[in-house]
């Protein structure tokens, strides 16, 4: 009979320990009790779930198949209620007895709830579990007044998550400064300013005296008598180890369950791991030391009682995108012999503090710029003598030989603190699975999949160990952002960001460039259907003045001429405008319309007014035109009314923006006179039906469009067009023409997600399109209401200057 191992607690430390036990000795008969109903998930990432950066599915660590294939009896949603030490059995919440030979307590900790009157009111929450997170998500809504009690790591992450969901958030903290356990007061001040700049209110120091309200919370009262309105309260005031079970069983318990260096408790058959433990007077709140515990305990339990646990120096990183805070080691500067090196630049919000003793790094605080964290951590872990480097401490040189420094790390050293992956395991995986990229490494080992701060280390390790390491093509939008366009789109959507400057300030380098600014402008317009802060300075000149800049700084004007159809009256106005403004060239374009070239910027509003026509958007990444043929109206072969259908198509899409320019064509029969099969979207008339085709091109490259669907009526064709059009708007990368988009995704996928999508999905796509359309308008209306007073005006100096004064 194999030994029976029971684990109480299905959390990060307990399951990590089981994983190691399975590797050492797969012969246990294992039962895990977990009082949450979920499989083991990455608790650390609940902050990201709250902030919309990850879904609940994405943070699962061990799926149900893992339990099954390892023969583990998992009792989820079942609590261990009591331990009968003498009979070596646990009694669960359902009254069942389960016998054990060895019992591991991995019960973690719970949110500490300070004894404040009113904490039991409705809408007072804690933030510890997935269920807590879901409850918060269910209540969070735009404008909800939320108060977070506690300005530590957890409280700030909760605050940001709620704020991203639209809540109006205030953080209350008992102390003079935020995150005082990890930061000094200067660091706390920088952090406070950064948090406030995100739009979160911070009140320091405030002691909550009571939570007010009749049943539901409606406010807080502080010790100084002040009151604050609140509809939702999150208590993030610390944690307390779940040690009651052990205490009642008669084990030695102080704040946590007392364990020795082997993770043994005072009962020879019972062990403990994780946040429920107390080791040499210390309890824990971060995961890295717990993974070390898990490894040591696995050895102890499997009969290899040798490895001992010693708590590593703490290291903590705030997981709020755009707020870079890192703290590690001892930050106590009052200790004798400690030297402090400090750097700050208030203009960019950067603050660094290093604490040295005997020329060795013992602690650090990094705020606003944490790029050098891996180098500092290496110095601290390895106890490097920094005497020779004293002049370069604040800007450490990059490692000269990336292999060397990593080579010096012991195999047992942890590389990924969040997931407890050691150097040795990574090397083993690289060899075993022939890993050559960081992506594959992440997939196999889970290293660098949580906070991501060890990515650099992982990459250096790969470079040193993998014979044919491949740098991953990082398809970032531009050098201003560490993200791809797609990733940024998810962030902007999730974080409800509404202006280019905000995106740049929080996620970018605060400068921006000619690549990302127009791309972000498009993204915001598309995501918020025009309901965002339009920033002209982020637009290319064409989109500031709604005309196409020419080589001499003049502009061209192409009015909308739907379906290529004009009238004598329109042509007369065009002729008059050309005369009045002395327009150097009037030309029929390749897109069936008329171009007035060489117009001065200052003349644009007048030209538009006199033309009395709408913008043809010939200058922008937007809806260009629909070329049509004469179709049934005149053509002897025509089988569909291409002209009127084309005009209707143009009306439905005009004034909207797209990832790249969007050109269309509608033809009345397969002779294809208006070249619909080489347009971004085309309708080809057939006897009794329309073929809707997409992704065609006849520009830099030539590509025949793919058939999206064949439908009977013009209305059906228009709906198919709308579905594809909005789908491309939402999923195309900026500057990706439809011909590249269709090739990238494949027509099958596009069909499945547009014309063959479930009715509900289709309705949503159309809704979003119609919402954008309703908010869109003809850009040339700015002739009467310019976006700013000097949009088209040439500025004249206020004082006369004699030319002779100039050099």
């Amino acid at each position, binding site marked *: 009979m194999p030994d029976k191992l029971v684990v109480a607690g299905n959390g990060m430390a307990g399951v990590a320990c089981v994983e190691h036990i399975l590797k050492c000795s797969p012969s246990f008969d294992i039962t895990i009790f977990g009082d949450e109903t979920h499989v083991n998930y990455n608790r650390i990432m609940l902050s990201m779930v709250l902030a919309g950066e990850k879904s609940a599915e994405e943070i699962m660590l061990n799926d149900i198949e893992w339990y099954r294939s390892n023969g583990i009896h998992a009792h989820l949603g079942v609590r261990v209620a009591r331990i009968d030490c003498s009979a070596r059995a646990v009694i669960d919440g359902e009254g069942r007895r389960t016998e054990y030979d060895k019992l591991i307590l991995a019960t973690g900790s719970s949110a500490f709830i300070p004894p404040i009157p009113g904490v039991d009111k409705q809408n007072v929450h804690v933030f510890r579990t997935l269920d807590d997170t879901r409850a918060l998500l269910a209540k969070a809504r735009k404008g909800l007044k939320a108060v977070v009690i506690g300005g530590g790591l957890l409280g700030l992450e909760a605050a940001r998550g709620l704020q991203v969901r639209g809540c109006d958030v205030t953080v209350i903290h008992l102390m003079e400064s935020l995150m005082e356990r990890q930061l000094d007061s200067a660091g706390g001040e920088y952090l406070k300013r950064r948090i406030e700049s995100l739009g979160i209110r911070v009140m320091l120091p405030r002691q909550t005296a009571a939570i007010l309200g009749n049943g539901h919370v409606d406010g807080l009262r502080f010790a100084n008598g002040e009151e604050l309105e609140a509809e939702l309260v999150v208590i993030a005031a610390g944690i307390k180890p779940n040690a009651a079970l052990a205490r009642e069983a008669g084990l030695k318990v102080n704040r946590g369950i007392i364990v020795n260096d082997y993770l043994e408790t005072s009962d020879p058959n019972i062990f403990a791991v994780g946040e429920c433990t107390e080791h040499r007077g210390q309890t824990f709140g971060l995961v890295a030391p717990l993974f070390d515990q898990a490894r040591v305990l696995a050895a102890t339990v499997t009969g290899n009682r040798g490895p001992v646990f010693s708590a590593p120096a703490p290291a903590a990183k705030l997981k709020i995108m755009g707020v870079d805070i890192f703290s590690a080691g001892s930050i106590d500067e009052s200790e004798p012999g400690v030297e402090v090196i400090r750097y700050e630049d208030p203009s960019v919000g950067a603050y660094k503090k290093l604490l040295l003793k005997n020329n060795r790094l013992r602690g650090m605080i990094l705020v606003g710029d944490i790029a050098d964290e891996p180098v500092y951590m290496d110095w601290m872990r390895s106890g490097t003598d920094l005497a020779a480097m004293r002049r370069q401490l604040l800007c450490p040189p990059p490692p000269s030989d990336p292999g060397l420094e990593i080579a010096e790390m012991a195999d047992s050293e942890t590389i990924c603190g969040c997931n407890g992956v050691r150097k040795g395991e990574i090397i083993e995986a690289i060899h075993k699975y022939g890993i050559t990229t960081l992506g594959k490494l992440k997939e196999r080992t889970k290293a660098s999949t949580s906070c991501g701060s060890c990515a650099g280390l992982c990459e250096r390790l790969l470079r040193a160990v993998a014979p044919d390491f491949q740098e991953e093509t990082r398809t970032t939008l531009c050098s201003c952002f560490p993200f791809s366009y797609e990733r940024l789109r998810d962030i902007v959507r999730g974080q409800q960001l509404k202006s280019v400057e905000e995106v740049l300030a929080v996620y970018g380098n605060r400068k921006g460039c*000619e690549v990302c600014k*127009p791309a972000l402008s498009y993204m915001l317009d598309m995501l918020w259907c025009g309901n965002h802060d339009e920033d*002209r300075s982020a637009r290319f000149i064409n989109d500031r003045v709604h005309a196409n800049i020419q080589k001499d700084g003049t502009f061209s004007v192409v009015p909308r001429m739907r379906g290529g159809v004009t009238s004598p009256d329109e042509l007369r106005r065009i002729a008059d405008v050309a005369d009045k403004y002395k327009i150097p060239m009037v030309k029929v374009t390749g897109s069936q319309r008329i171009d007035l070239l060489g117009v001065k910027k200052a003349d644009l509003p007048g030209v538009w007014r006199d033309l009395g026509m709408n913008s043809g958007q010939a200058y922008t990444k937007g809806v260009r035109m629909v070329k049509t043929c004469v179709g049934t109206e005149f053509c002897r072969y025509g089988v569909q009314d291409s002209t009127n259908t084309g005009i209707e198509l143009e009306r439905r899409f005009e004034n909207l923006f797209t990832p790249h320019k969007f050109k269309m064509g509608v033809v009345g029969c397969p002779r294809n006179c208006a070249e619909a099969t080489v347009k971004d979207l085309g309708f080809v008339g057939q006897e009794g039906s329309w073929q809707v085709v997409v992704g065609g091109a006849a520009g830099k490259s030539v590509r025949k469009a793919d058939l999206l669907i064949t439908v009977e009526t013009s209305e059906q064709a228009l709906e198919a067009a709308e579905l594809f059009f909005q789908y491309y708007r939402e999923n195309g990368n900026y500057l990706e023409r439809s011909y590249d988009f269709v090739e990238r995704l494949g027509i099958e996928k596009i069909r499945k997600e547009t014309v063959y999508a479930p009715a509900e999905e289709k309705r949503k796509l159309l809704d979003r399109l119609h919402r954008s359309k309703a908010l869109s308008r003809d850009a040339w209306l700015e002739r009467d209401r310019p976006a700013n007073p000097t949009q088209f005006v040439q*500025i004249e100096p206020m004082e006369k200057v004699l030319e002779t*004064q100039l050099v």
Partner: protein
Amino acid sequence: MNWTKITRVENIPPREGRPVRIGNLEIAIFNVNGRFLTIENSCPHRGGPLCDGIISGTAVVCPLHGRHFDLETGMPMRVSEPACLATFPTRVEDGIVLVDLTAGHRVMEDAAA
């Protein structure tokens, strides 16, 4: 110093530039988030109107072919570009932008000219 009053600060929106012509000289004044900086308006490449460029930090990107120039020094941001722009001392007083038009200065002699 020979300051000339040019225009009210609100006439140059944040992160945009505006051209001003004085005789044969055309300058572009930029509002870099509240700081006003002035350069000559003609791109040394092919005369592009720099006033219409997108701002990237303290640089402007020429709207015609995308060359970058630092507004503080007039220097091109890529070393391979030989030519640089003249910059003009600029200050703000009582909400009015003043430029010293007589003190145009080029860090580097225009090799391309």
